[in-house]
């Protein structure tokens, strides 16, 4: 798309209008978007075309439209986080990611659906209704960033932004046959990202190809003084790494297969496609070693203590005083009465579960046994990664243990829902970057399988090199992209 814009084969206005038309045609069925800003996107597209005509595009992606997860503040565009408590809230400022997209000339098509405050693995916890997987509309698109992944898979947007706290970019990528990248923690600014668990949250690209992710990562990444956890280091040549990888030569690259993330508990077809992909990398010259990360068995438990603890504190800001929903009970209610009523009315079940759990884990008497232990396990997980990266340049695993499940199947069984993130969570706890790319369709259900690549902190370029190599090798086997095999969505006529 960027090449067509550069050569003049198309214009940003034409591209943006085509995607807006596609949204009108299929989003009734997919429900990937919560807000569409047709007028704003077309105005940004016209400005982009004018820049290009004047010979001064703002970036390599100038004019390519994008959708943004509804957890990132966008000035003048509603930002709800999938919650009733923020219904109708229009931020007075842009998140750094949104500001960088605008500065680079990418028209923002709209905001994508998500589990409320990014809490979930299926997008069913959105207060505005679930998003449907374009591969099978009865199935979940993953979560929490199911809207971003589904929009990209359904060709409603060529690019999207997601956020990943325990896998919310990578797991939706896996189950929708798209590419998703969680950068190194601190590699992309969190300023204006509504926090769920600040020590884990990270925004990143959601795209159809590995190179697109690298290009988008270069636009949104890099130091931001507005985020005190932002890392003041160069990003590395990410797109160059992807281009180099696409040549398909893996000679000298050491790939570690994580023993604990596979086998029992993983769907047979997921494991099969993963093993086949590893074999392709070996054929391309990679050296494969088995690595063991024994502490990973405790990662899920540590995550489900740290994340709710941080969330219970972060979500205290929704107090009905300065912004958001205010419910005023009858009589002469105090501010506290109003807070309690507003938070009950504004938050959904999963958010309440996590706030209560976090409040419990942080209570005196339980703190050491739960939160304190979870933070120690975090240290053990980082040590496991360190040891594993001494043996391998990148680590690999299936992204999610299963393909997309049916909508409603796990809604009232939180523990079963949490297990979806078992392979993605360790990277968040250790702050390292991870990428998921499609590895094919599981033979038993014909649904996409995700392949995860993990690299040491600040070595995001390795994700792109190995990811692009595997993508090229797989597409060579398939004779095209995986999404070419997705069922056609019925287009509603407006």
């Amino acid at each position, binding site marked *: 798309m960027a090449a067509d814009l550069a050569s003049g084969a198309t214009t940003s206005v034409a591209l943006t209008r085509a995607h807006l038309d596609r949204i009108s045609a299929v989003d009734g069925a997919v429900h990937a978007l919560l807000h569409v800003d047709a007028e704003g996107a077309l105005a940004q597209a016209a400005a982009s075309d004018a820049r290009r005509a004047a010979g001064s595009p703002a970036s390599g992606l100038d004019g390519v439209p994008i959708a943004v997860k509804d957890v990132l503040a966008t000035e003048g565009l509603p930002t709800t986080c999938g919650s009733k408590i923020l219904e109708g*809230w229009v931020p*007075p*400022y842009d998140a750094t990611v949104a500001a960088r997209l605008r500065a680079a000339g990418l028209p923002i098509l709209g905001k994508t659906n998500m589990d409320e405050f990014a809490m979930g693995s299926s997008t069913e916890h959105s207060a505005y209704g679930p998003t449907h997987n374009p591969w099978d509309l009865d199935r979940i698109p993953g979560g929490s960033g199911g809207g971003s992944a589904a929009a990209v898979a359904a060709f409603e947007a060529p690019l999207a932004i997601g956020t990943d706290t325990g896998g919310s970019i990578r797991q939706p990528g896996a189950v929708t046959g798209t590419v998703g990248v969680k950068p*190194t*923690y*601190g590699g992309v600014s969190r300023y204006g990202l509504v926090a769920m668990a600040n*020590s884990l949250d990270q925004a990143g690209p959601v795209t159809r190809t590995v190179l697109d992710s690298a290009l988008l990562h270069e636009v949104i990444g890099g130091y931001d003084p507005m985020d*005190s*956890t932002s*890392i003041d280091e160069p990003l590395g040549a990410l797109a160059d790494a992807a281009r180099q990888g696409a040549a398909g030569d893996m000679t000298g690259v050491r790939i570690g297969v994580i023993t604990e993330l596979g086998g029992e508990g993983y769907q047979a077809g997921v494991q099969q496609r993963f093993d086949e992909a590893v074999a392709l990398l070996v054929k391309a010259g990679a050296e494969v070693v088995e690595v063991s990360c024994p*502490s990973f068995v*405790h990662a*899920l*438990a*540590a995550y*489900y*203590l740290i994340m709710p603890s941080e969330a219970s504190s972060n979500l*205290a800001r929704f*107090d009905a*005083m*300065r*912004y*958001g*929903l205010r419910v*005023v009970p009858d009589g*002469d209610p*105090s*501010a*506290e009465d*109003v807070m*309690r*009523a507003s*938070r*009950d009315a504004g938050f959904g079940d999963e958010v*309440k*579960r996590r*706030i*209560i*759990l976090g*409040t*419990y884990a942080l*209570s005196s008497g339980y703190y050491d*046994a*739960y939160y*304190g*232990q979870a*933070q*120690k*396990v*975090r*240290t*053990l997980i980082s040590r496991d990664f360190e040891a594993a990266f001494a043996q391998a340049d990148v680590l690999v695993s299936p992204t999610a243990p299963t393909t997309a499940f049916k909508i409603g199947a796990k809604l*009232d069984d*939180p*523990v079963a829902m*949490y297990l979806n993130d078992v392979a993605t969570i360790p990277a968040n*706890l250790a*702050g*390292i970057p991870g990428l998921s790319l499609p590895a094919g369709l599981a033979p038993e259900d014909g649904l996409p399988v995700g392949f995860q690549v993990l690299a040491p*902190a600040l070595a995001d370029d390795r994700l792109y090199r190995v990811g692009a190599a595997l993508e090229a090798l797989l597409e060579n086997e398939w004779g095209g992209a995986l999404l070419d095999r997705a069922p056609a969505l019925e287009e509603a006529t407006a």
Partner: protein
Amino acid sequence: MPEITRDEVAHLATLARIDLSDAELDHLAPQLSVILESVASITGVAGDDVPPTSHAIPLTNVFRDDVVTPSLTAEQALAMAPASEQQRFLVPRILGDEQ
């Protein structure tokens, strides 16, 4: 085996300033017990010799120069407030009658 009772959930909800209905308490208490049971395996995993990690990527504190930079106007900051008066957030009473 750890368990969160219905009364404990009600108390935690008070601490978290959420009015849970009876139906919600009935629904959430058993679910929270199941979740807690599934994470309880973590107790005792790491000994005293393991330092806790609160932040995975080591960083030193960041300071900026103490200079005024442009910020939101009062109108912008108040635009989304549930209620405002005289360029201020208008909130319900914060003290009881007897105070």
